C-alpha cells in the first residue's frame, strides 16, 4: 500500500515525458496554465507603485503580442511571464524619483531597450524601435532604442548583466572579441577571470567525485574572491544537464556572492529553454571589424619596420581589397571555412613573416613610391591568405578579381602565387 505521507511532486515543462505513459500513468497530473499577462502586469505595476497602470498594462499586452509574432524566431528569447517580470523589474530599478505619465513611458522604453533590445541585430532593433515609438506615441522624436554596438557599450552591458544575474551567456563567433570583452569587463569591475575549457575534463574532474568536494570548479568557487569563472566551449549536453549542479556547486562553495559564472559559446542552438531562462544573454557580434583587426595587428607587428604613412595606406588598401574580394558571398569556393576576420588575420601574419624573413626595411625615402610598394605588398598578402585556399576551379575567377582591384602592371606575369617579394620588393619566382 502506498504510504499517504509520502508524495512525489514532479514539476516538469518537458512535453516528451507525457509520452512515457507508464510513468505518467502512475501519477495524478496537474497542469498549470499560463495566467493572463494583463493581470500579472497590472498586479506587478501596482505593487511597485506606478501611477499609469492601465496605460502601461496595455503597452505590455501589445508588446508581448509583438514579441510572440515577430521576435520569437530568436531561439534565445523566452517571451513568457518571466520577460514581463524582467521588464517591470528593470523599470522599477530605473525609477529613482521619477513618477508621472511621461516619465513612466520613457521608463518603459528604456526597460524594453535593456531587456529585449540590446541583443537584437540592427535590422530587428530598428523594427522594435518603430513599434515602441508607435506604441508610446512618440514616433518621430529621437530614437529611443537605437544604440550602435561598440566595444564599450558591450563591456557596459556585460557588467550590468553580470551584476543582475549570477550566470550569463556570452555568444559570438570566433575572433569577434568575446574573450576581450569578458576580460575588459572583469577588469573594470575589479574581478579576476578564470577560464575553464570544460570540454577537456571529465565530470568528476570538473565537479569532484561527490557534489561540492574537490574538483576544478568547487576549488575555484571556494578559493577565489570576486571572480568570474568562464566556461569556454560549446553549450551541449554537459552544460544543459549539469547547470543545476553548477548552481548548487556555487551555492555550496560560495561564501562570497561575488563569484559569477559565465558561459562563452558560439551558438545557442543546443541550449535548453530552462538554461536560457535562468541566465542573461549578451551577444557579441560585429564589434570587431576587418578594419579594426588589420589596424591593430599591423600596428603591433610592423610599427618598427614601416613608416607610419605607409602603414596607414597599407592597412586601408588591405581592408578595401579584402572587402571587395570577400563581399560577394561564395564567390570562390574555399578549401577551409574561413571567416573574413580569419582571412584578415592571416594576411597580417603573412606580411610580418615576409618582412622578417626577407629582412625588408622601409624608410622615409620610400614614401614617393609608397603606392607601388603598398600595391605589391597587399597583392602578395591577399594571394597568400585567400588565393592559396581557393579550389583550382575557381582560381581563374580569383585572379580576375585580383586584377580588378590592383593595376595589371603591378602583378607579375604567371600569377602572384608563383612569386615572392625580395628584400628590394621586386617580384621573384619561388
Amino acid at each position, binding site marked *: 500500500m502506498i504510504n499517504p505521507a509520502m508524495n512525489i511532486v514532479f514539476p516538469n515543462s518537458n512535453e516528451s515525458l507525457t509520452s512515457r505513459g507508464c510513468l505518467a500513468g502512475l501519477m495524478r497530473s496537474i497542469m498549470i496554465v499560463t495566467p493572463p499577462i494583463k493581470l500579472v502586469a497590472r498586479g506587478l505595476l501596482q505593487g511597485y507603485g506606478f501611477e499609469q497602470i492601465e496605460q502601461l498594462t496595455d503597452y505590455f499586452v501589445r508588446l508581448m503580442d509583438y514579441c510572440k509574432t515577430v521576435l520569437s524566431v530568436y531561439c534565445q528569447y523566452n517571451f513568457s511571464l518571466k520577460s514581463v517580470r524582467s521588464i517591470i523589474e528593470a523599470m522599477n530599478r530605473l525609477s529613482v524619483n521619477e513618477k508621472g505619465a511621461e516619465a513612466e513611458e520613457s521608463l518603459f522604453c528604456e526597460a524594453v531597450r535593456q531587456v529585449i533590445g540590446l541583443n537584437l541585430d540592427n535590422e530587428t532593433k530598428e523594427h522594435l524601435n518603430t513599434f515602441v515609438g508607435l506604441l508610446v506615441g512618440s514616433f518621430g522624436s529621437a530614437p529611443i532604442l537605437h544604440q550602435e554596438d561598440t566595444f564599450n557599450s558591450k563591456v557596459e552591458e556585460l557588467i550590468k548583466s553580470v551584476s543582475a544575474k549570477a550566470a550569463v551567456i556570452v555568444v559570438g563567433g570566433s575572433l569577434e572579441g568575446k*574573450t576581450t570583452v569578458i576580460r575588459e569587463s572583469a577588469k573594470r569591475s575589479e574581478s579576476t577571470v*578564470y*577560464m*575553464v*575549457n570544460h*570540454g*577537456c*575534463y*571529465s565530470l568528476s*574532474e570538473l565537479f569532484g567525485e561527490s557534489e561540492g568536494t*574537490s*574538483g*576544478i570548479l568547487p*576549488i575555484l568557487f571556494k578559493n577565489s574572491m570576486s571572480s568570474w569563472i568562464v566556461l*569556454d*566551449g560549446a553549450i551541449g549536453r554537459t552544460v544543459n544537464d549539469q547547470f543545476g549542479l553548477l548552481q548548487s556547486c556555487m551555492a555550496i562553495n560560495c561564501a562570497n556572492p561575488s563569484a559569477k559564472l559565465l558561459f562563452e559559446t558560439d551558438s545557442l542552438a543546443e541550449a535548453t529553454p530552462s538554461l536560457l531562462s535562468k541566465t542573461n544573454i549578451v551577444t557579441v557580434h560585429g564589434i570587431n571589424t576587418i578594419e579594426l583587426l588589420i589596424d591593430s595587428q599591423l600596428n603591433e607587428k610592423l610599427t618598427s619596420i614601416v613608416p607610419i604613412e605607409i602603414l596607414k595606406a597599407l592597412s586601408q588598401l588591405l581592408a578595401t581589397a579584402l572587402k571587395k574580394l570577400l563581399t560577394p558571398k561564395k564567390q570562390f569556393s574555399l*578549401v*577551409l571555412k574561413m571567416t573574413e576576420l580569419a582571412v584578415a588575420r592571416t594576411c597580417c*601574419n*603573412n606580411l*610580418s*613573416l615576409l618582412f*622578417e*624573413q626577407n629582412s625588408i626595411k622601409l624608410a622615409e625615402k620610400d614614401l614617393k613610391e609608397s603606392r607601388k610598394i603598398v600595391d605589391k605588398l597587399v597583392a602578395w598578402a591577399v594571394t*597568400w591568405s585567400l588565393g592559396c585556399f581557393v579550389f583550382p576551379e575557381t582560381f581563374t575567377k580569383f585572379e580576375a578579381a585580383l586584377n580588378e582591384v590592383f593595376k595589371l602592371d603591378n602583378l607579375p606575369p604567371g600569377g602572384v602565387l*608563383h612569386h*615572392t617579394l625580395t628584400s628590394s620588393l621586386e617580384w621573384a*619566382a*619561388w
Partner: protein
Amino acid sequence: MIWTSEAYCCSTFIRGNIQQKTELMIIGQTGTGKSKIVRSVINYLSKEENSLNKLCMTLSSNSKATTIQALLEERLQNQRRNGQIVTMPPPGKKLLIQIDDLSLNSCSEPALEILRQQISHHGMFDRCSFGWKAT
C-alpha cells in the same frame, strides 16, 4: 625528397611561422607530402638551433585528453617567473610540438579541446590538485 617550388614555398611559410611561434595547421590530401615537408623543416631547424626540443604525437579516435596532457607535462618544468609558478620548457630551450593526423572528424573531442585550451588560454588545470598551471 624532391624539392619542387611548391614544397619550397610551403617550407618557407612553415619555417617562418615556427620562428614567430605561431600555431600552424597544415592541410592537404594524402600523399601530397605534408608530413615529409614538416619533418624536413623541423630537422633543418633543429640542426640550425640546438635549443629546439621536439615532441611528435599522432592523434586517433582513441586519444585521450589526459594522455596528451601527460605527454606535454613530461616535457615541461616548473619555473618561477615574477613570483608565480609557470610550467615551461627547460631554460634556454624551445618546445616544438608536431601533431600528426589531427583529423577533426575521427578525433575524440576532449583531445582537441585540451589543445584548444593550451593554444587560447596558455595553460592547463592539474589533474590531481585541480589548480591552474600557466604555460
